[in-house]
């Protein structure tokens, strides 16, 4: 019961982290497809620099969230849960969550 509730919280957190990662990675790619014409060379370069930097920052966020997700689903973490209640691991929670 205890482990199951804790496991449910982990799945909720994993889903939220996965959503942040997906959103960051998708936005990072999508921004690079824009071709804004500001009518001025200097302004255009500044817009391009901003878009490149925003895209890079979004990639950094996606990478960092991927690390957090990996530690959430690490074998040590799963073993610890399984040893307390073999039926309450994340695999079961994932199926139950459908």
């Amino acid at each position: 019961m205890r482990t199951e509730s804790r496991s449910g919280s982990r799945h909720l957190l994993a889903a939220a982290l996965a959503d942040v990662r997906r959103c960051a990675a998708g936005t990072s790619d999508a921004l690079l497809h824009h071709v804004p014409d500001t009518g001025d060379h200097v302004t255009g370069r500044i817009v391009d620099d901003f878009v490149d930097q925003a895209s890079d920052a979004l990639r950094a966020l996606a990478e960092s969230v991927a690390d957090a997700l990996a530690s959430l689903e690490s074998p040590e973490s799963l073993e610890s849960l399984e040893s307390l209640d073999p039926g309450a691991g994340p695999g079961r929670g994932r199926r139950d969550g459908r």
Partner: protein
Amino acid sequence: MIATLMGDPSSCSQLGGDLRTRAATLLTAREALADARSAGSRAGSRLASPDLPDLPDLPERDQRLLDTLVDRLDAAGAALQRYAQELAEQAEELRRLEAEVSRAGLTLDGLQVVEPWGLATVDAASHRRAELPGLAARAERLASRVGRSRGALQRTLTEATGVLARAAADTRASLGR
């Protein structure tokens, strides 16, 4: 000439709108993450056990990066939308000015009103000289508005670029990359 001077307001507006929409989507994801964390904390405090591993969390610097991205993407999007609106108004003003300059027998060189090359009759030259100061003043006012619009957009985006670069570098440093 208008296209060269004034660019394409619609492409700037599209980027601005996309930045704001994506900032809102990131904000929703951030709120869902905060909800998941507080649900985890409640479960953790009710069911605390030394045998259970702690729930991993986003480090504070990553939360800062996420917050910074939401704020700066939205601010940059708003600045681009304002710029696009001003660009469209300035392009319209430039069209009107160009027509009047042409009717006065003058020409526009960028945003400067000048007398064309070549011979002119005395009457035509006199008419041009009479019209030139008023039209030149309008062109100067327009150039000044264009400059202010560009400056405002440049300041917002330059500052945002620096802030995002520092936040991304902090996150990467913590990842050891």
